């Protein structure tokens, strides 16, 4: 694994370096860091901080995609959990707020997982239901208003710092290590990949594919919940309409940039997070360069297409995958 990582991640690391270099040209102070009130400030920290929600989402999404699934509902789940956290924040302590928000994320994930694993629905369709209904539910919770709060504990979660680093960054790092330890420290990651590679064969080989699928959607829901809480804490309020809007697409993009195949069967957590950072570095760069932020969408579209073409079996001519495809077609 460790020997594999650098070779597989080379393209992503190079891409990040190139984008960072471009950002440095655009904005000469890009790499400047200064310590103020025991906290680091600077564009780089800003990239890390702003990239946190997508990085968290991509941690869950990458596992879902590894099982050949997709979760379109993560943005809506963010909105639901942010709304719950915001409406409880001023009347309850942080543990209750977190438990309620993460619990809601877990339930959302369980619902998605149930539809996919037990009822056998296509993942796009199954998660589309929550994507459509989820924002309605979030607005039900906020009663159509933007709920604001002033609980210092929750605000700290979005704006505080630990050892000079913003709390969201520390949380995302913690989640990366936790997820990595669980799926790569055990056979779980392998079983997830097996499920994505060929669900039926894995099932026959004794892998509990339903349990695998169910658990990745649950984990995706929890990650989305955490992202939602952080996004709410960051702006000290919950906006059911706009929280996490289109972030499901960014999360999928991050996973794809990270080299995880949409056809399932292999994944890398670290590279997915790296993908999220690449997206954020581009976003920040475009903002700093003075181009309208709308330019982002075009750049993203070009990047998705480029990465997809590189991934495409027919384009890259990866003999193994091509042969496999040909065999299934025959």
């Amino acid at each position, binding site marked *: 694994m460790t020997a594999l990582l650098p070779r597989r991640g080379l393209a992503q690391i190079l891409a990040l370096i190139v984008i960072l270099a471009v950002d440095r040209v655009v904005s000469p102070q890009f790499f400047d860091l200064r310590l103020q009130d025991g906290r680091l400030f600077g564009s780089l920290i800003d990239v890390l901080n702003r990239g946190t929600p997508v990085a968290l989402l991509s941690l869950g999404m990458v596992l879902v995609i590894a099982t*050949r699934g997709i979760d379109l509902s993560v943005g809506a789940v963010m909105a639901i959990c942010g709304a719950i956290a915001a409406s409880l924040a001023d009347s309850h302590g942080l543990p209750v707020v977190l438990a309620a928000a993460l619990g809601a994320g877990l339930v959302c994930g369980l619902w998605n997982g149930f539809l996919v694993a037990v009822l056998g629905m296509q993942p796009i369709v*199954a998660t589309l239901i929550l994507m459509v209904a989820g924002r309605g539910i979030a607005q039900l919770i906020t009663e159509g208003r933007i709920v604001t709060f002033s609980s210092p504990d929750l605000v700290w979660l979005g704006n505080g710092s630990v050892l000079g680093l913003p709390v969201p960054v520390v949380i995302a790092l913690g989640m990366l290590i936790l997820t990595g330890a669980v799926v790569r420290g055990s056979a779980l990651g392998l079983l997830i990949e097996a499920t994505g590679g060929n669900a039926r064969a894995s099932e026959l080989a004794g892998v509990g594919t339903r349990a695998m699928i169910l658990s990745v959607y649950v984990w995706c829901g929890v990650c989305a919940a955490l992202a939602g809480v952080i996004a709410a804490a960051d702006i000290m309020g919950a906006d059911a309409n706009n929280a996490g809007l289109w972030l499901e697409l960014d999360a999928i993009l991050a996973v794809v940039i990270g080299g995880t195949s949409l056809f399932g069967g292999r994944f890398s957590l670290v590279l997915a997070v790296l993908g999220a950072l690449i997206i954020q570095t581009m976003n920040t760069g475009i903002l700093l360069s003075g181009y309208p932020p709308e330019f982002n969408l075009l750049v993203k579209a070009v990047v998705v297409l480029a990465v997809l073409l590189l991934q495409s079996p*027919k384009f890259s001519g990866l003999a193994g995958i091509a042969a496999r495809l040909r065999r299934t077609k025959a």
Partner: protein
Amino acid sequence: MKGLPPVLITAIVLVAGFALCAMQFPNIASTRVVGNLLTDNAFLGIVATGMTFVIISGGIDLSVGSVIGFTTVFVALAIERWGVPPLVAFVAILALSAAFGAAMGAVIHVFDLPPFIVTLAGMFLARGASFLLSTESVPITAPVYSTVSDFALRMPGGGRLTAIAIIMLVIVIGGALLLHLTRFGANVYALGGSRVTASLMGVAVGKMTVKIYMLSSLLAGIAGIVFSFYTSAGYSLSAVGVELDSIAAVVIGGTLLTGGQGSVIGTFLGVLIQGMIQTYINFDGTLSSWWTKIATGVLLFAFIALQQGLVALARRPVTKSAGAAS
């Protein structure tokens, strides 16, 4: 013929729902309300017709909302800023959107990529392009627009069948004929049933894929023009999320999301059901608009669960464990 039962269920839901609404608010059962419902959902009906073809063929098109947005901005700028005659602007944008769809279809087929992600890139591209054209709402003051908006057929009971509603009805009927009576339509079903089988039976899979996405984008372009008639403006943020509404309409209309089964008429009924929910919420006045989303989500779930049940039932005699296979 196989597609009949789900369509019947959709029709029953529509009639029952409408009856319930009419019981609570007798005024709903008037040609005025029905006329408005058709006008308000004209662009959705058009774009959902295209989506029906894509989904029956086993694909999905997430770019339609963005194509509508791009079309409204392009048309508004062409007419108001660049001084292009409206008809020329319409022809240009329709050619452009058809080419856009053809390009997506070609990428999907040639590189063997999931339609979902290719059209997602298309969605970014079209939305980004419309932002580049203009981020402000551009009002359209051309005389054609007021002529078209004023045009309406009087229905008995005082309802108005507007021009854009008529365009929608014509496209729905044309779409239904194209799907059910032509070789092209039969090929769409064949593709959704199984690409491999279709190819073995002599269907030119590549050409069909390109044509289907071209049709979807072309209809999205027409929907965009209709939308610009509806709002008399071009705005880059218009029709955000319409792809979801149209997918929901297709599914509620009884089209199988795995492809191979479905009908344009069902989709039309699905659009009417969504419009009905919206009308009910408007009449009620105390319910907020977000109940539309929850109701749509519940209906989506109900219909997909129903499909899943029907599929499982159909498969039962052949294999016992149909659960994990997707």
